């Protein structure tokens, strides 16, 4: 008996074909696209919305991430935004009545040198000032929270201390996608799977594309008041149809799980100097990831050299991992923005909005980005939470540089 199949959500799919026109068309049926559709319907009563996915819902990066929810970022704008998202996740089961397997575990971010210890102390103070619960803790407390750790780091990476993010959590990625899909479908939103968008319907003048008026699919054109690209990885292609240049480079991020570890491994653990992170899935498997591949790439296969390098790093800090075997590995194509912060909202082209730049940090932002984008689509003005993350920040010399908080670089 599989508990995940046993408790599959009931998705009330629409039976019709796509209508010729919608108020809002969302490209990409992952977490971000579906949460935007859900909040448009739930918070603003906008239900004439259609979500299109080239494959099945959640088949892109929503199905390839490591499901970590946290808000311990390095710049105030990001901490406030991700803290709001973390709180929405905490209330999502109550709001939707659907179980997303949300589990608050706490996240430990290890420092192995004096300089990274200082970075983590700064992070803790800055997080507290912005409303996120992060404290700096010493090796004794790290050992108490995670007895499996080798505090000497194999003699080479001794643990100096760590920042402890109390509200760090995980949730089941598929169930988050299905929960938003179910909520949106129940309110009358249309979701079409296996419907790739092959182009945008644009109105152009001598100065380029003026307006996006709809999308092209193999089954014909769908007109839209607003087109939102919630595409992961391949967003540069979609934006190019509208003549929009993006500060995005696609990189493959690989991760893997081992066979089940019979004991409890309580927190989520990341390392600043070694660049890897470990957590335990509800099935007991150890979930391990590290930095994304250095070269820009759209490849979704994993490589032996990566698995080898990542395993070597993880077993330095957690020697018990060397007794486990790799069960599955996967890669996702991440849309990494040049300042390591998301890009949300208007693009300078009428009727075309973006939710991109999610790189390796998109899963935790699904509720807040959806809610705030829905608010932007309904009202026309970005809220204070997402205003700093507009595409125009690059031309205005207001980039939101926060590379150290990605945890994957």
């Amino acid at each position: 008996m599989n508990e995940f199949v046993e408790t599959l959500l009931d998705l009330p799919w629409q039976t019709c074909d796509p209508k010729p026109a919608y108020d809002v068309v969302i490209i990409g049926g992952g977490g971000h696209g579906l949460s935007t559709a859900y909040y448009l319907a739930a918070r603003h009563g906008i239900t004439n919305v259609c979500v299109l996915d080239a494959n099945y819902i959640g088949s892109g990066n929503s199905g390839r991430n490591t499901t970590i929810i946290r808000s311990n970022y390095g710049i105030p704008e990001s901490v406030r935004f991700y803290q709001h998202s973390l709180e929405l996740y905490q209330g999502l089961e109550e709001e939707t009545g659907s179980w997303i397997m949300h589990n608050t575990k706490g996240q430990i971010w290890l420092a192995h040198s004096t300089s990274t210890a200082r970075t983590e102390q700064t992070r803790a103070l800055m997080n507290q000032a912005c409303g996120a619960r992060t404290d700096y803790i010493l090796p004794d407390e790290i050992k108490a929270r995670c007895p499996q750790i080798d505090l000497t780091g194999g003699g080479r990476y001794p643990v100096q201390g760590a920042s402890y993010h109390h509200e760090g959590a995980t949730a089941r990625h598929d169930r988050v996608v299905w929960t938003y899909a179910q909520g949106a479908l129940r309110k009358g939103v249309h979701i079409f799977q296996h419907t790739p968008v092959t182009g945008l319907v644009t109105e152009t003048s001598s100065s380029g594309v003026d307006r996006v008026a709809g999308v092209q699919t193999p089954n014909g054109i769908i007109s839209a008041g607003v087109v939102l690209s919630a595409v992961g990885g391949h967003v540069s292609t979609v934006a190019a149809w509208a003549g929009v240049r993006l500060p995005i480079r696609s990189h493959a991020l690989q991760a893997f799980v081992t066979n089940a570890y019979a004991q409890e491994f309580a927190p989520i653990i990341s390392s600043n100097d070694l660049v890897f992170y470990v957590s335990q899935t509800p099935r007991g498997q150890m979930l391990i990831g590290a930095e994304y591949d250095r070269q820009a790439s759209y490849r979704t296969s994993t490589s032996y050299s990566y698995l080898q390098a990542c395993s070597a790093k993880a077993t330095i800090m957690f020697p018990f991992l060397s007794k486990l075997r790799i069960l599955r590995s996967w890669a996702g194509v991440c849309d990494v923005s040049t300042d390591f912060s998301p890009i949300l909202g208007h693009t300078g082209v009428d009727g075309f909005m973006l939710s991109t730049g999610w790189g390796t940090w998109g899963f935790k932002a699904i509720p807040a980005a959806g809610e705030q984008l829905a608010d932007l689509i309904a009202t026309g003005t970005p809220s204070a939470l997402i205003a700093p993350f507009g595409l125009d920040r690059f031309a205005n010399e207001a980039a939101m540089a926060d590379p150290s908080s990605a945890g994957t670089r």
Partner: protein
Amino acid sequence: MLWIECPHCGTRPFEEFRYGSVFPVTPETITDPDARNVDYAWMQDNIQGVTLERWFHESGCRRWFTAKRDTTTDTFLPLDD
């Protein structure tokens, strides 16, 4: 395992190399000098397909070279193709 053809050392394993970047190209259609600067500093072509880029043979001859790579598969192609 991925292999890369270094023009000086021959076929060597992928791990010996460091990725530089693609050649940045600002489109001719952007004419405003400020906009060209912003594009040069931040924007990316992010090509899905064959790109020309710079690689560094870090653990080998330590020389930079130009390579042609298909970004959908990470396979390297002969330069004169």
